[in-house]
Protein backbone atom coordinates (compact mmCIF):
# COMPACT_ATOMS: atom_id res chain seq x y z
CA UNK A 1 0.00 0.00 0.00
CA UNK A 2 1.27 3.42 -0.97
CA UNK A 3 -1.41 6.07 -0.36
CA UNK A 4 0.75 9.02 -1.37
CA UNK A 5 3.42 9.51 -4.00
CA UNK A 6 5.84 12.43 -3.77
CA UNK A 7 6.66 14.12 -7.07
CA UNK A 8 8.98 17.17 -7.02
CA UNK A 9 8.44 17.57 -3.30
CA UNK A 10 4.65 17.64 -3.57
CA UNK A 11 2.52 14.76 -2.29
CA UNK A 12 -0.15 13.31 -4.60
CA UNK A 13 -2.77 10.71 -3.84
CA UNK A 14 -1.71 7.49 -5.58
CA UNK A 15 -5.40 6.59 -6.09
CA UNK A 16 -5.98 9.80 -8.06
CA UNK A 17 -2.77 9.35 -10.03
CA UNK A 18 -3.56 5.73 -10.91
CA UNK A 19 -7.01 6.73 -12.17
CA UNK A 20 -5.49 9.56 -14.20
CA UNK A 21 -2.90 7.27 -15.76
CA UNK A 22 -5.57 4.65 -16.48
CA UNK A 23 -7.90 7.05 -18.27
CA UNK A 24 -5.11 8.64 -20.31
CA UNK A 25 -3.64 5.25 -21.22
CA UNK A 26 -7.02 3.81 -22.22
CA UNK A 27 -8.01 6.77 -24.39
CA UNK A 28 -4.64 6.99 -26.13
CA UNK A 29 -4.58 3.22 -26.65
CA UNK A 30 -8.03 3.44 -28.24
CA UNK A 31 -6.88 6.33 -30.43
CA UNK A 32 -3.76 4.51 -31.62
CA UNK A 33 -4.68 0.83 -31.65
CA UNK A 34 -8.33 0.66 -32.64
CA UNK A 35 -8.42 -0.06 -36.36
CA UNK A 36 -12.10 -0.84 -36.95
CA UNK A 37 -13.32 2.70 -36.37
CA UNK A 38 -12.54 5.53 -38.83
CA UNK A 39 -10.48 8.48 -37.56
CA UNK A 40 -13.32 11.03 -37.79
CA UNK A 41 -15.59 8.81 -35.72
CA UNK A 42 -12.80 8.27 -33.18
CA UNK A 43 -12.66 12.05 -32.69
CA UNK A 44 -16.36 12.15 -31.95
CA UNK A 45 -16.10 9.18 -29.58
CA UNK A 46 -13.18 10.74 -27.66
CA UNK A 47 -15.05 14.04 -27.42
CA UNK A 48 -18.09 12.25 -26.01
CA UNK A 49 -15.88 10.26 -23.63
CA UNK A 50 -14.28 13.51 -22.40
CA UNK A 51 -17.66 14.80 -21.23
CA UNK A 52 -18.75 11.30 -20.22
CA UNK A 53 -15.87 11.11 -17.74
CA UNK A 54 -17.37 14.01 -15.84
CA UNK A 55 -20.85 12.45 -15.94
CA UNK A 56 -19.47 9.05 -14.90
CA UNK A 57 -17.52 10.34 -11.92
CA UNK A 58 -20.41 12.54 -10.84
CA UNK A 59 -22.77 9.51 -11.01
CA UNK A 60 -20.28 7.45 -9.00
CA UNK A 61 -20.03 10.22 -6.40
CA UNK A 62 -23.80 10.72 -6.25
CA UNK A 63 -24.47 6.96 -6.24
CA UNK A 64 -22.21 6.51 -3.24
CA UNK A 65 -24.16 9.14 -1.32
CA UNK A 66 -27.51 7.58 -2.27
CA UNK A 67 -26.35 4.14 -1.15
CA UNK A 68 -24.75 5.22 2.11
CA UNK A 69 -27.06 7.97 3.35
CA UNK A 70 -30.60 6.75 3.57
CA UNK A 71 -32.27 9.87 4.97
CA UNK A 72 -32.61 13.17 3.16
CA UNK A 73 -31.02 15.02 6.12
CA UNK A 74 -27.91 12.82 6.09
CA UNK A 75 -27.68 13.03 2.30
CA UNK A 76 -27.88 16.83 2.36
CA UNK A 77 -25.45 17.12 5.26
CA UNK A 78 -22.75 15.04 3.53
CA UNK A 79 -23.39 16.17 -0.05
CA UNK A 80 -20.30 18.39 -0.40
CA UNK A 81 -18.11 16.00 1.56
CA UNK A 82 -16.04 13.42 -0.35
CA UNK A 83 -17.26 10.08 1.00
CA UNK A 84 -16.01 7.89 -1.84
CA UNK A 85 -17.41 6.69 -5.15
CA UNK A 86 -19.40 3.65 -6.27
CA UNK A 87 -18.06 2.23 -9.52
CA UNK A 88 -21.31 0.56 -10.59
CA UNK A 89 -23.31 3.81 -10.30
CA UNK A 90 -20.65 5.55 -12.35
CA UNK A 91 -20.82 2.76 -14.93
CA UNK A 92 -24.60 3.11 -15.27
CA UNK A 93 -24.42 6.92 -15.53
CA UNK A 94 -21.63 6.95 -18.07
CA UNK A 95 -23.14 4.23 -20.27
CA UNK A 96 -26.55 5.94 -20.35
CA UNK A 97 -24.91 9.27 -21.21
CA UNK A 98 -22.68 7.74 -23.89
CA UNK A 99 -25.56 5.83 -25.50
CA UNK A 100 -27.82 8.92 -25.48
CA UNK A 101 -25.23 11.29 -26.97
CA UNK A 102 -23.92 8.79 -29.51
CA UNK A 103 -27.46 8.02 -30.67
CA UNK A 104 -28.26 11.73 -30.98
CA UNK A 105 -25.14 12.20 -33.13
CA UNK A 106 -25.38 9.10 -35.38
CA UNK A 107 -28.96 7.75 -35.00
CA UNK A 108 -27.78 4.20 -35.66
CA UNK A 109 -28.14 1.41 -33.07
CA UNK A 110 -25.98 -1.00 -35.05
CA UNK A 111 -23.11 1.46 -35.20
CA UNK A 112 -23.54 2.21 -31.52
CA UNK A 113 -23.30 -1.47 -30.64
CA UNK A 114 -20.16 -1.85 -32.79
CA UNK A 115 -18.61 1.19 -31.07
CA UNK A 116 -19.44 -0.13 -27.59
CA UNK A 117 -17.85 -3.45 -28.61
CA UNK A 118 -14.71 -1.61 -29.68
CA UNK A 119 -14.30 0.53 -26.59
CA UNK A 120 -15.01 -2.20 -24.02
CA UNK A 121 -11.42 -3.60 -23.79
CA UNK A 122 -10.02 -0.08 -23.33
CA UNK A 123 -12.60 0.58 -20.64
CA UNK A 124 -11.41 -2.58 -18.86
CA UNK A 125 -7.81 -1.31 -19.06
CA UNK A 126 -8.84 1.93 -17.34
CA UNK A 127 -10.79 -0.06 -14.76
CA UNK A 128 -7.73 -2.19 -13.98
CA UNK A 129 -5.72 0.98 -13.33
CA UNK A 130 -8.51 2.25 -11.12
CA UNK A 131 -8.36 -0.92 -9.04
CA UNK A 132 -4.58 -0.65 -8.80
CA UNK A 133 -5.26 2.83 -7.38
CA UNK A 134 -7.77 1.34 -4.91
CA UNK A 135 -5.18 -1.16 -3.73
CA UNK A 136 -2.44 1.47 -3.40
CA UNK A 137 -4.76 3.95 -1.71
CA UNK A 138 -6.07 1.33 0.70
CA UNK A 139 -9.67 2.50 0.35
CA UNK A 140 -10.99 -0.95 -0.65
CA UNK A 141 -9.97 -3.98 1.37
CA UNK A 142 -11.15 -7.47 2.15
CA UNK A 143 -12.27 -9.43 5.20
CA UNK A 144 -9.73 -11.11 7.50
CA UNK A 145 -8.17 -14.33 6.25
CA UNK A 146 -5.42 -16.78 7.25
CA UNK A 147 -4.66 -17.68 3.63
CA UNK A 148 -1.31 -17.15 1.97
CA UNK A 149 -2.74 -14.36 -0.21
CA UNK A 150 -3.75 -12.25 2.78
CA UNK A 151 -2.14 -8.81 3.04
CA UNK A 152 -1.45 -6.62 6.06
CA UNK A 153 -2.22 -2.93 5.81
CA UNK A 154 -0.08 -0.20 7.44
CA UNK A 155 -1.03 1.42 10.73
CA UNK A 156 -2.60 4.62 9.46
CA UNK A 157 -4.87 2.92 6.91
CA UNK A 158 -8.66 2.46 7.06
CA UNK A 159 -8.15 -1.30 7.03
CA UNK A 160 -5.90 -1.15 10.09
CA UNK A 161 -8.41 1.01 11.95
CA UNK A 162 -11.11 -1.58 11.30
CA UNK A 163 -9.29 -4.91 11.57
CA UNK A 164 -5.97 -4.05 13.22
CA UNK A 165 -2.96 -6.13 12.27
CA UNK A 166 -4.99 -9.00 10.75
CA UNK A 167 -4.25 -10.33 7.26
CA UNK A 168 -7.01 -9.33 4.81
CA UNK A 169 -8.19 -10.58 1.42
CA UNK A 170 -6.71 -8.29 -1.25
CA UNK A 171 -10.17 -7.55 -2.74
CA UNK A 172 -8.99 -5.07 -5.42
CA UNK A 173 -6.34 -7.57 -6.56
CA UNK A 174 -9.02 -10.26 -6.94
CA UNK A 175 -10.94 -7.87 -9.18
CA UNK A 176 -7.82 -7.02 -11.21
CA UNK A 177 -7.19 -10.73 -11.82
CA UNK A 178 -10.81 -11.21 -12.90
CA UNK A 179 -10.63 -8.21 -15.25
CA UNK A 180 -7.40 -9.54 -16.78
CA UNK A 181 -9.11 -12.89 -17.31
CA UNK A 182 -11.97 -11.08 -19.06
CA UNK A 183 -9.51 -9.29 -21.33
CA UNK A 184 -7.88 -12.64 -22.11
CA UNK A 185 -11.27 -14.11 -23.06
CA UNK A 186 -12.09 -11.11 -25.25
CA UNK A 187 -8.81 -11.57 -27.08
CA UNK A 188 -8.74 -15.33 -27.54
CA UNK A 189 -12.28 -16.73 -27.38
CA UNK A 190 -14.29 -16.16 -30.54
CA UNK A 191 -17.72 -15.53 -29.04
CA UNK A 192 -16.27 -13.13 -26.45
CA UNK A 193 -14.32 -11.33 -29.17
CA UNK A 194 -17.46 -10.81 -31.22
CA UNK A 195 -19.75 -9.78 -28.35
CA UNK A 196 -17.48 -7.80 -26.05
CA UNK A 197 -20.21 -5.71 -24.40
CA UNK A 198 -22.32 -8.73 -23.54
CA UNK A 199 -19.19 -10.58 -22.43
CA UNK A 200 -18.26 -7.65 -20.17
CA UNK A 201 -21.60 -7.54 -18.40
CA UNK A 202 -22.10 -11.30 -18.23
CA UNK A 203 -18.63 -11.86 -16.78
CA UNK A 204 -17.91 -8.75 -14.73
CA UNK A 205 -21.20 -8.55 -12.84
CA UNK A 206 -21.25 -12.15 -11.53
CA UNK A 207 -17.54 -11.81 -10.70
CA UNK A 208 -18.13 -8.57 -8.85
CA UNK A 209 -21.10 -10.16 -7.06
CA UNK A 210 -18.80 -12.88 -5.73
CA UNK A 211 -15.93 -10.53 -4.86
CA UNK A 212 -18.33 -8.42 -2.77
CA UNK A 213 -18.56 -11.33 -0.28
CA UNK A 214 -14.82 -10.99 0.37
CA UNK A 215 -14.86 -7.23 0.90
CA UNK A 216 -14.49 -5.88 4.39
CA UNK A 217 -14.87 -2.12 3.91
CA UNK A 218 -18.16 -0.31 4.45
CA UNK A 219 -20.55 -1.81 1.87
CA UNK A 220 -23.59 0.33 2.68
CA UNK A 221 -27.00 -0.89 3.72
CA UNK A 222 -26.99 -4.73 3.70
CA UNK A 223 -30.39 -6.20 2.80
CA UNK A 224 -31.16 -9.96 2.76
CA UNK A 225 -27.42 -10.57 3.20
CA UNK A 226 -26.44 -8.75 0.02
CA UNK A 227 -24.84 -5.34 -0.37
CA UNK A 228 -26.15 -2.45 -2.52
CA UNK A 229 -23.47 -3.17 -5.15
CA UNK A 230 -24.66 -6.78 -5.38
CA UNK A 231 -28.25 -5.60 -5.78
CA UNK A 232 -27.12 -3.29 -8.59
CA UNK A 233 -25.29 -6.24 -10.22
CA UNK A 234 -28.47 -8.33 -10.08
CA UNK A 235 -30.52 -5.43 -11.49
CA UNK A 236 -28.18 -4.91 -14.44
CA UNK A 237 -28.02 -8.66 -15.11
CA UNK A 238 -31.83 -8.77 -15.19
CA UNK A 239 -31.91 -5.90 -17.69
CA UNK A 240 -29.24 -7.69 -19.77
CA UNK A 241 -31.32 -10.89 -19.75
CA UNK A 242 -34.38 -8.97 -21.01
CA UNK A 243 -32.34 -7.24 -23.73
CA UNK A 244 -30.80 -10.54 -24.84
CA UNK A 245 -34.23 -12.20 -24.94
CA UNK A 246 -35.52 -9.30 -27.06
CA UNK A 247 -32.53 -9.59 -29.35
CA UNK A 248 -33.07 -13.31 -29.85
CA UNK A 249 -36.79 -12.86 -30.45
CA UNK A 250 -36.24 -10.15 -33.07
CA UNK A 251 -33.27 -11.95 -34.68
CA UNK A 252 -31.02 -8.89 -34.39
CA UNK A 253 -27.22 -8.93 -34.22
CA UNK A 254 -27.07 -6.08 -31.73
CA UNK A 255 -28.81 -5.26 -28.47
Amino acid at each position, binding site marked *: MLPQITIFG*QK*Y*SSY*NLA*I*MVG*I*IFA*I*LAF*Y*KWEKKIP*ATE*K*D*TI*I*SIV*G*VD*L*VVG*FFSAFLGNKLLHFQTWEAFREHFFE*FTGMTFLCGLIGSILFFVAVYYIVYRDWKKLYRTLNSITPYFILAQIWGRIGCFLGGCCFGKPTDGIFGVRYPENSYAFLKYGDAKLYPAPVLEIVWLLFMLFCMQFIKICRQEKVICYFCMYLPGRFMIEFFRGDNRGNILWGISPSQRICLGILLIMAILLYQRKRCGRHYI
Partner: protein
Amino acid sequence: MSKKRGTSTAPIVLGIVGGVLDLPFAICSGVCAGALTNSEEVTSTYLGLGIVAGIIAIVFGCMAKKRPALAGGMLVVSTILSLVCFGFSYNFGGLIATVVTLIGAILCFTQKKEIVEES
Protein backbone atom coordinates in the same frame (compact mmCIF):
# COMPACT_ATOMS: atom_id res chain seq x y z
CA MET B 1 2.29 30.44 -47.93
CA SER B 2 1.31 27.04 -46.57
CA LYS B 3 0.15 26.37 -43.03
CA LYS B 4 -0.43 23.20 -41.06
CA ARG B 5 -3.93 22.84 -39.65
CA GLY B 6 -5.42 20.23 -37.38
CA THR B 7 -8.30 18.06 -38.55
CA SER B 8 -9.68 16.79 -35.26
CA THR B 9 -12.44 18.36 -33.19
CA ALA B 10 -11.64 16.27 -30.10
CA PRO B 11 -8.91 18.63 -28.72
CA ILE B 12 -11.31 21.57 -29.02
CA VAL B 13 -14.04 19.80 -27.08
CA LEU B 14 -11.63 18.38 -24.50
CA GLY B 15 -9.83 21.70 -24.02
CA ILE B 16 -13.09 23.56 -23.47
CA VAL B 17 -14.55 20.88 -21.17
CA GLY B 18 -11.32 20.75 -19.15
CA GLY B 19 -11.13 24.54 -18.92
CA VAL B 20 -14.76 24.99 -17.91
CA LEU B 21 -14.37 22.29 -15.26
CA ASP B 22 -11.18 23.91 -13.95
CA LEU B 23 -12.96 27.12 -12.94
CA PRO B 24 -15.39 25.92 -10.23
CA PHE B 25 -12.88 23.41 -8.87
CA ALA B 26 -10.26 26.19 -8.65
CA ILE B 27 -12.48 27.91 -6.07
CA CYS B 28 -12.88 24.64 -4.19
CA SER B 29 -9.14 23.96 -4.36
CA GLY B 30 -8.24 27.47 -3.17
CA VAL B 31 -10.55 27.16 -0.18
CA CYS B 32 -9.19 23.68 0.72
CA ALA B 33 -5.55 24.74 0.34
CA GLY B 34 -6.22 27.85 2.45
CA ALA B 35 -7.93 25.81 5.14
CA LEU B 36 -5.07 23.28 5.24
CA THR B 37 -2.37 25.93 5.62
CA ASN B 38 -4.47 28.59 7.35
CA SER B 39 -3.17 31.25 5.00
CA GLU B 40 -5.03 33.69 2.72
CA GLU B 41 -2.03 33.95 0.44
CA VAL B 42 -2.14 30.24 -0.33
CA THR B 43 -5.89 30.49 -1.03
CA SER B 44 -5.40 33.23 -3.59
CA THR B 45 -2.36 31.51 -5.16
CA TYR B 46 -4.20 28.23 -5.74
CA LEU B 47 -7.38 29.98 -6.81
CA GLY B 48 -5.36 32.05 -9.28
CA LEU B 49 -3.48 29.01 -10.61
CA GLY B 50 -6.73 27.12 -11.22
CA ILE B 51 -8.44 30.04 -12.93
CA VAL B 52 -5.44 30.78 -15.16
CA ALA B 53 -5.23 27.06 -16.07
CA GLY B 54 -8.95 27.07 -16.95
CA ILE B 55 -8.75 30.20 -19.09
CA ILE B 56 -5.67 28.91 -20.95
CA ALA B 57 -7.41 25.60 -21.64
CA ILE B 58 -10.55 27.30 -22.99
CA VAL B 59 -8.74 29.87 -25.15
CA PHE B 60 -6.16 27.51 -26.63
CA GLY B 61 -8.64 24.63 -26.86
CA CYS B 62 -10.59 26.82 -29.30
CA MET B 63 -7.40 27.28 -31.35
CA ALA B 64 -6.63 23.56 -31.59
CA LYS B 65 -7.54 23.38 -35.30
CA LYS B 66 -5.99 26.66 -36.41
CA ARG B 67 -2.69 26.43 -34.51
CA PRO B 68 -2.34 22.81 -33.30
CA ALA B 69 1.25 23.00 -32.04
CA LEU B 70 0.72 26.21 -30.06
CA ALA B 71 -2.60 24.98 -28.68
CA GLY B 72 -1.06 21.64 -27.69
CA GLY B 73 1.82 23.35 -25.90
CA MET B 74 -0.49 25.70 -24.02
CA LEU B 75 -2.81 22.86 -23.05
CA VAL B 76 0.23 21.10 -21.56
CA VAL B 77 1.01 24.28 -19.60
CA SER B 78 -2.61 24.36 -18.41
CA THR B 79 -2.35 20.70 -17.38
CA ILE B 80 0.79 21.35 -15.32
CA LEU B 81 -0.78 24.38 -13.62
CA SER B 82 -3.94 22.48 -12.75
CA LEU B 83 -1.97 19.43 -11.58
CA VAL B 84 -0.08 21.64 -9.13
CA CYS B 85 -3.30 23.35 -8.09
CA PHE B 86 -5.50 20.29 -7.67
CA GLY B 87 -2.85 17.78 -6.65
CA PHE B 88 -2.09 19.73 -3.51
CA SER B 89 -5.67 19.83 -2.32
CA TYR B 90 -6.55 16.23 -3.41
CA ASN B 91 -9.34 17.73 -5.50
CA PHE B 92 -10.74 14.78 -7.46
CA GLY B 93 -12.99 16.84 -9.74
CA GLY B 94 -10.05 19.05 -10.62
CA LEU B 95 -7.99 16.01 -11.49
CA ILE B 96 -10.67 14.89 -13.96
CA ALA B 97 -10.38 18.32 -15.57
CA THR B 98 -6.60 17.85 -15.68
CA VAL B 99 -6.95 14.46 -17.38
CA VAL B 100 -9.38 15.82 -19.95
CA THR B 101 -7.07 18.77 -20.74
CA LEU B 102 -4.02 16.51 -21.00
CA ILE B 103 -5.77 14.17 -23.44
CA GLY B 104 -6.76 17.24 -25.48
CA ALA B 105 -3.11 18.36 -25.48
CA ILE B 106 -1.82 14.97 -26.61
CA LEU B 107 -4.43 14.75 -29.35
CA CYS B 108 -3.41 18.24 -30.51
CA PHE B 109 0.04 16.90 -31.29
CA THR B 110 -0.96 13.47 -32.60
CA GLN B 111 -3.94 14.45 -34.76
CA LYS B 112 -3.66 14.28 -38.54
CA LYS B 113 -2.59 17.62 -40.00
CA GLU B 114 -3.59 19.04 -43.36
CA ILE B 115 -1.56 21.61 -45.26
CA VAL B 116 -3.57 24.65 -46.28
CA GLU B 117 -2.34 27.12 -48.85
CA GLU B 118 -2.88 30.71 -47.81
CA SER B 119 -2.66 33.60 -50.20
